[in-house]
């Protein structure tokens, strides 16, 4: 179940979409040293997750990648033709219904009305908000808002997809359900994903690669290839290999706080 038809899909997406940081550092004008010497790249079909302590610069890294934040030093090379960005908050427009919120990105990209309504309907179905199209954000629960926000960024078939703790505020069941949906989507669309989370299990479950960041200034202090294949059944979470990898990342994180 892709958001757009397969045919349209291929045309709309730039298959060379990618993201590369090269010795990237960031010091804010007020002197806050947020990031230090970050180097890694994400190719299409790669799902890279960054875990790290609160305030270490993860959101800043995404903002730099998206082009929202400037003033960094070092290299940052991102294909921004079709970028998807799920913010830490849902950031829905309160005067728009669910349907019109999901259409927003497509609307701002001048996708014509029929087409964007069709894509929005599919995205809404995908995040399981069908039946709530005419509700306003104030009528939604926190989880529904987040799903609406996710649907909004799906509509553009991004080649680079940035996720800033999108499921952090959700209950465990909804979160795991959306993790599966995201994996299915990823297998289908093969975008380059840069994902941020506080949950180590979520990081390992979703990713092809997990990076651990230190406390501020954020540096990469751990780098793990995730050995599991594209097919990730739910009970993967209970495999010894899964637990073992989580444990190693956890140890790194403990070091990060020290």
């Amino acid at each position, binding site marked *: 179940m892709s958001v757009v038809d397969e045919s349209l899909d291929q045309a709309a997406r730039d298959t060379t979409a990618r993201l590369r940081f090269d010795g990237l550092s960031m010091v804010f004008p007020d002197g806050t040293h947020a990031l230090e010497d970050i180097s890694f790249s994400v190719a299409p079909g790669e799902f890279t997750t960054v875990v790290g302590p609160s305030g270490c610069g993860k959101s800043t890294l995404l*903002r730099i990648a*998206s*082009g*929202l934040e400037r003033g960094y030093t070092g290299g940052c090379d991102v294909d921004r033709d079709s*970028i998807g*960005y799920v*913010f830490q*908050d849902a*950031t829905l*427009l*309160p*005067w*728009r219904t669910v349907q019109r919120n999901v259409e*927003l*990105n497509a*609307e*701002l*990209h001048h996708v014509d009305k029929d087409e964007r309504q069709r894509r929005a309907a599919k995205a809404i179905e995908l995040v*399981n908000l069908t039946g*709530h199209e005419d*509700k*306003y*954000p*104030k*009528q*939604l*629960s926190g*989880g*529904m808002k987040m799903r609406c926000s996710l649907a909004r960024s799906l509509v553009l078939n991004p080649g680079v997809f940035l996720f800033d703790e999108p499921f952090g505020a959700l*209950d465990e*069941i*909804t979160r*795991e*359900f959306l993790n*599966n949906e995201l994996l299915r989507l990823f297998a289908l669309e093969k975008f380059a994903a840069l994902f941020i989370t506080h949950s180590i299990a979520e990081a390992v479950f979703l990713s092809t690669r997990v990076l651990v960041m230190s406390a501020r200034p954020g540096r990469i202090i751990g780098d793990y290839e995730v050995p599991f294949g594209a097919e990730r*059944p*739910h*009970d993967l979470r209970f495999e010894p290999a899964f637990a073992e990898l989580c444990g190693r990342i956890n140890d790194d994180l403990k070091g990060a706080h020290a």
Partner: protein
Amino acid sequence: MTTVDDVGSATALPEAAIDDETGAPATRVAPVKRAGDGFLGRFLPPAIMFAIFIGVWYLYSTLAFDQAFQRRNALPYPHEVVVDGFLPLWDPRQGTREIMGYMWPTIKVTLLGLGISIVVGVCIAVVMNMSRYFERAIFPYAVVAQTVPVLAITPLLTQVFGDKLGVRLAVVFLIAVFPIITNTLFGLQSTDRLHHDLFTLNKAGRWTRLWKLELPTALPALMTGIRIASGLAVIGAIVADFFFNQGDKGIGFFIRVRQQKAADRPDMLAGTITASLFGVVMFLIVGAITARAIRDWHDSANHG
């Protein structure tokens, strides 16, 4: 009971999760029920206040004047105001019909002036919001429009706007536009930073941003501004009649002329009461319209 295993294989969210979520908003959206929301609770308190007010009026009129003619020429009893001021109801040259004849020009000036204030005020706020320099350049003059004693500069206004409809609208505009400007500007500037980021990511231009983000954000504040301005517009329309003699004369003119002869005191009070009622009606209608405009999505629309 939904077990964890169900979720792994499910293609849809477990029912429980959806039900929880659809059930919750209904209670969240429902207006907070406070004591005194019933019919009696709503209308009894103002009715009692009205009775007290009328009572005090009778008391004061009785105690302050020894002779009936003194009282009638200074502060007649409420029933005298009704009989001598509002009656007869249907004679075009006196009573209620005459007062209403003076009300129409006042209503026209109020609504037109308010409309102009809203349109021009929003445009000024939009310009001020475009750059800090515009804001700094314009803001002092918006404040001056608010603080200048409009009545002191009537000769100047007559010079520029004549002494008919134009100058009356100018007076209304000068005192009603300020709350429109400040509220709209505040609304435009309180746009969420993340919403701006969202529009930046989607490469939205300045006008798209204004139209689809900043103006909707400012709408609730603008509505507050319009409510305040509507009261000021009524005052402006009436006060203008005190200074300009040409053009369609409004209720202010009626009141002013009746002030000059003590015998006309009931008429004067009847005119004043009608003008005040108009202010109240304006406030209620504008309040209802502005609340309706943002009812569906704004939190404040749940109250009152």
